[in-house]
């Protein structure tokens, strides 16, 4: 069944509809792939083998009965372990929720299933989506299928590694500051974060509520369009979801954007960027240009990256982003107190305050504690104006920069990550170094914009290099079509990682 594993979601859906492969076969192939390779990779926290098989068999029965089975009919999909499902566990890769079983299913997952997708299981992540390497998982660190001594990125590292290694054709991730795009770049797959509010957050365990967004991780842009069209749309359960019709992204993803004006933010093509990545991006830009696109230089002054004398990087966007997301996280994670659900200490001796403190101390990992403490600090009386309020002002300036840039171009072409996949353990002792993994991705979460990362090259060391395309608010179609243009005129997607199931 290696054929099915090599197919994209779109190809697999069509093959199932045509009767070339059954949904049951496809799902069993994925389950078998996970069985064979996940010992090395640790992409999955939980696999719903029985449920998935039954779901797939039901799709086959419906197909046999001549029913239509939806835009993802029979396609196995993995979901990140921070999306609630009324079956199995939803752990956020945290000891706190190790045994948590949600009584309801996230809207995005419900929409996948309604479109005929088969839910394979929950993928590994940095605890509560806080991290850029999936090393902050309380379960196990996920490995990069291109080099298992390296991280897959994060926090949706499990989803990216599972799709890259052919364990499944597609997965959902969530992106607060780059958590879909960065691991997609490091694993050589496509990761798409739609406009904030485009996909319902209902059932997505909150990290930074004003930044969080669900999106697909796939092997090509067409699949990103397909899954996006399925999961996007207004949800009465999420007041921040956008109430606008959803275009059929998949239907027109092949239509090139003509004319296409590509903006290159000059603040991001500096010495701070890895030379190999810069060169790959410039080659990609030239490729676009050769195919008729116009390259323009634009400026994002408040997302500027400064390099100190000692080489340390800094940016307003990163500072602003971490203040906002940590403040929100400190409040969002307050509910994990051991009272109603989640980890409860057995050391409290009947005292409620001690029970609460110990449960949180035992249930949360170091990175989560660090962010909760920093966030609590920035919201405290006397510090609010200096940190949170100021960050909101900077956030507006960052968003305005993007608005002005999009007056002159259709999409921005920029790096997804400052480097290729790094060695496990190389940044775990240096939180700032880990935070700087977001340096090219978190600005657009602050601005709420759609962004996609797609593989464009391999480094000399054989690791994938990603390119990030950013669009204006609700510019999903433009981003997807521009990305698809590149995909069809280049051959970067043809590379395969060293660990694959197929």
């Amino acid at each position: 069944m290696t054929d099915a594993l090599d197919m994209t979601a779109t190809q697999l859906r069509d093959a199932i509809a045509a009767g070339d492969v059954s949904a049951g076969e496809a799902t069993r192939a994925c389950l078998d792939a996970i069985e064979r390779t996940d010992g090395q990779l640790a992409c999955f926290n939980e696999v719903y083998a029985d449920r998935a098989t039954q779901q797939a068999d039901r799709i086959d029965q419906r197909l046999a009965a001549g029913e239509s089975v939806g835009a993802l009919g029979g396609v196995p999909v993995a979901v990140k372990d921070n999306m609630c499902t009324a079956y199995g566990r939803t752990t956020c890769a945290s000891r706190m929720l190790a045994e948590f079983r949600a009584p309801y299913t996230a809207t995005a997952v419900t929409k996948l299933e309604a479109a005929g997708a088969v839910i394979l299981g929950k993928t590994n992540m940095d605890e509560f989506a806080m991290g850029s390497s999936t090393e902050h998982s309380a379960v196990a660190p996920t490995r990069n299928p291109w080099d298992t001594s390296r991280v897959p990125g994060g926090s949706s590292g499990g989803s990216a590694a599972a799709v890259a290694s052919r364990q499944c054709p597609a997965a959902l991730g969530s992106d607060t500051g780059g958590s879909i795009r960065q691991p997609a770049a490091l694993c050589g797959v496509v990761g798409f974060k739609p406009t904030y509010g485009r996909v319902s957050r209902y059932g997505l365990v909150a990290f930074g509520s004003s930044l969080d967004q669900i999106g697909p991780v796939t092997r090509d842009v067409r699949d990103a369009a397909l899954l996006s069209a399925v999961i996007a749309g207004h949800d009465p359960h999420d007041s921040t979801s956008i109430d606008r019709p959803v275009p059929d992204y998949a239907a027109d993803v092949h239509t090139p954007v003509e004319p296409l004006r590509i903006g290159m933010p000059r603040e991001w093509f500096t010495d701070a960027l890895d030379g190999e990545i810069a060169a790959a991006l410039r080659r990609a830009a030239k490729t676009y240009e050769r195919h008729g696109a116009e390259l323009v230089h634009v400026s994002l002054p408040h997302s500027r990256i400064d390099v100190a004398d000692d080489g340390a990087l800094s940016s307003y966007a990163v500072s602003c982003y971490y203040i906002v997301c940590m403040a929100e996280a400190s409040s969002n994670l307050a509910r994990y107190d051991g009272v109603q659900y989640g980890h409860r200490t057995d050391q409290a001796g009947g005292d409620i305050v001690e029970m609460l403190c110990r449960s949180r101390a035992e249930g949360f990992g170091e990175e989560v504690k660090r962010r909760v403490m920093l966030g609590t600090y920035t919201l405290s009386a006397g510090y609010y104006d200096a940190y949170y309020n100021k960050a909101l002002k900077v956030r507006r300036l960052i968003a305005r920069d993007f608005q002005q840039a999009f007056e002159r171009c259709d999409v921005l072409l920029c790096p997804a990550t400052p480097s290729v996949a790094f060695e496990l353990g190389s940044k775990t002792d240096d939180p700032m170094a880990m935070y700087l993994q977001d340096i090219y991705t978190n600005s657009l979460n602050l601005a709420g914009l759609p962004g996609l990362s797609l593989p464009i090259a391999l480094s000399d060391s054989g690791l994938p290099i990603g390119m990030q395309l950013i669009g204006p608010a609700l510019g999903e179609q433009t981003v997807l079509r521009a990305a698809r243009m590149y995909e069809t005129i280049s051959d970067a997607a043809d590379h395969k990682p060293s660990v694959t199931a197929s």
Partner: protein
Amino acid sequence: MSDDVIITPIIGLEIHVELATATKMFCRCANRFGDEPNTHVCPVCLGLPGALPVMNAAAVELAMTVALALDCTVPDFTKWDRKGYYYPDLPKNYQISQYDLPLGARGRLAVPVTGDDGVVTTKTVRVKRAHLEEDAGKNIHDRGAGTGVDLNRAGVPLLEIVSEPDMNGVAELLAYARAMQRLVRWLGASEANMQMGQMRFEPNINLNIESGGRTYKTPIVEVKNLNSFRALERTCAFEIQRQTAEWRKDPEGFSLETLGKQNRGYDDAGEKTVFQREKEEAHDYRYFPDPDLVPVTISDDWRETVGGTIGELPLARRQRFCDAYGLAPAEADALTQDAATGDLLDAAVATGAEPKRCVNLLLGRGAAMANERDCAIGALGVTGVALGALAQMIDAGEVNATAGEKIFAALADGDADSPRQIAERDGLLAVRDSGQLAAWVDAAIAANPQAVADATGDGKKQKKAFGFLMGQVMQKSRGAAQPSEVQKLLSEKLS
């Protein structure tokens, strides 16, 4: 020294009112009191991971109604903030509330206050702000071992109305609290039932003391979660007394400057307050805008639509009843405790009935029956048309007052017939046939010689005996005789 000491209590009040919406503030669970614990809960009000709040517009409208009735400024733009604190009955460990942009600000409530001399004056209490938030659940200690948490109440819409410290005594404080209860009931915004915790008080109290040419201020004491008028009254009376005594012991040390604000709790059994903590130790609530909710934009149209539903408020109606219907202030007060009773009176008067006659029925038999049933007079089930017809029959002498009360009672008991049909059916129409009346009078005189003797004598039994004979005649008429006619005839016959 005590001669020139002038002590003025300075009292402000926070009132929490649960709004009478069908569903909760941010989810569609029923807003219902008294059911089995945790039967009206869902992922949202349980604060489960991934659940998101969605605003209930009906709650915003009820809150706006109250804010507008309090003459508050209702802003064009308001928003939701998270107030962070850890407590087991607060599932998210933050409460969705409103911090710097409340739904209503800078309002006032005119309150009738009855002085010690019985004179009613009007006190205007300024309202600082009124904001909307979600209620917490309840810790339960009486079911099995340990503490349980009931989250049926979690997420119920709660309006917090904060007054300026404008009340200068227990009487004003109670009058304000009662006026607020009447207002929110009047508007249909809340049942404001104290036993059900639908209305709760948090007074803050200190004293302004003028003595020896100097002004002293005692520490401000805030008392949380009082859920009866009695507790409110006792708390404030106790605090005034306690703070006075403390100040007399140590006028310099027992001051706001030195001690700041304090939290005290009300001890129900001891009817006193006990120290809880200094205000400085209070929580840092770490307010910030709730990113899960969109801000609320209030258009002029919306504001006007909501404002248009308010209608006449209690004090205005009270004044109109005095001016237009010639009622005594006490009568007007009694008829404006709720909206339905005054509505009934207006409807009866609209049929052409004499207001005073209607009021006698409402505050006589009506008040008694309402008291028995523990409901408003206006909720007894008597219609304005029936009340008006009955009042007109009494006025025309077609039934006497006693018969009128019987008919009113029948109507309140659900009698479907009209007052006239009831009167005819039950033989309650006044008898005006003078021959018939004379016959009853003669029979009563003949049957009671001793009473006749007493009634015609000069002794002290004269009045009583006359009354007895009146009663005999009324009895024979089975209540249908007009008492004034009987009295006239009987006097003539006995003279």
